[in-house]
């Protein structure tokens, strides 16, 4: 009877070699990635480092219900069309490079804004927020968890 032989020792050696190389190469990076850090919290820290406020999904829902905040979706038009927060305005991050002024004409500088994109890994909301802050907007909050988490919680969405 033939036996299935799994090369455990070889696999273990390759596993350890890769781990050593990963650790060593990370040390040589100009900006090493943290080996032990909460990814989501580091994204919030990045947002704050840009001088922007952050808001959790639950708090964003409260702000949404207050109706005083303008929600801005920084994703592309296709993603926006597939689903977004009801009443949100789509300002794709790419508009930073052209056409942003025409959109912002309708948004007063004092308007409180909540910007989101798909999830915490998506940098568009932070980058758009940074640009809007540069243009003079002050009340900017970033919903880092993004649309995906909002929708996953069963909160209101609409598609068009």
């Amino acid at each position, binding site marked *: 009877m033939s036996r299935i*032989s799994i090369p455990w020792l070889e696999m273990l050696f*390759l*596993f350890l070699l*890769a*781990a050593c190389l990963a*650790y060593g190469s990370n040390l040589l990076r100009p900006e090493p*990635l943290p080996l032990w850090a909460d990814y989501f919290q580091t994204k919030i820290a990045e947002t704050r480092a840009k001088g922007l406020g952050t808001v959790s999904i639950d708090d964003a829902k409260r702000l949404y219900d207050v109706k005083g905040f303008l929600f801005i979706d920084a994703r592309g038009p296709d993603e926006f069309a597939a689903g977004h927060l009801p009443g949100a305005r789509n300002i794709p991050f790419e508009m930073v490079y052209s056409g942003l002024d025409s959109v912002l004409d309708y948004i007063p500088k004092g308007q409180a804004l909540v910007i989101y994109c*798909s999830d915490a890994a998506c940098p568009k909301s932070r980058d758009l927020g940074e640009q809007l802050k540069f243009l003079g907007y002050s009340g900017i909050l970033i919903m880092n968890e993004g649309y995906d988490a909002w929708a996953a919680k069963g909160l209101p969405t609409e598609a068009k």
Partner: protein
Amino acid sequence: MKPYIELSARFLFGLVFVYAGAVKIAAPTAFAADIFQYQLLSDWLIYPAALFLPWLEAVCGLCLWAGTFKSGAAALCNGLLVIFMLALAINLWRGNDVACGCFGNSGSADARAALIRDGVILALGLVVQYFSRGGDKPRPQSVAQAGQGVAAS
């Protein structure tokens, strides 16, 4: 099987992993973002995985090329492919059409196409693993069997 076919399959399979590993080693932050969007790992494991997995792919791919530890490398590559396919399938089942991130940040989200592509690569990987363990070589007879053969003749 002709040796050059086994060699070609191993080279091609290794190339996939060397390339996949290299692009992700160059941009670990982007790979971390890709891992995060799968929503399968704890947030604490995102960075370690983003650093480790590309090196594992690259090391295994290079071993397949060099023919060193090729059995272990093929097994690890196939294991990684199965894990990646499971991750894609779970997200498809959740209705989350994630961008694969298999070869760096391609930007396009088509998990189904990625799943099919990974299936094809896995088929190639299983062929490589079979032959890396000497699967095409005749098994040696035991001493007893050899003795019976001599007696019969």
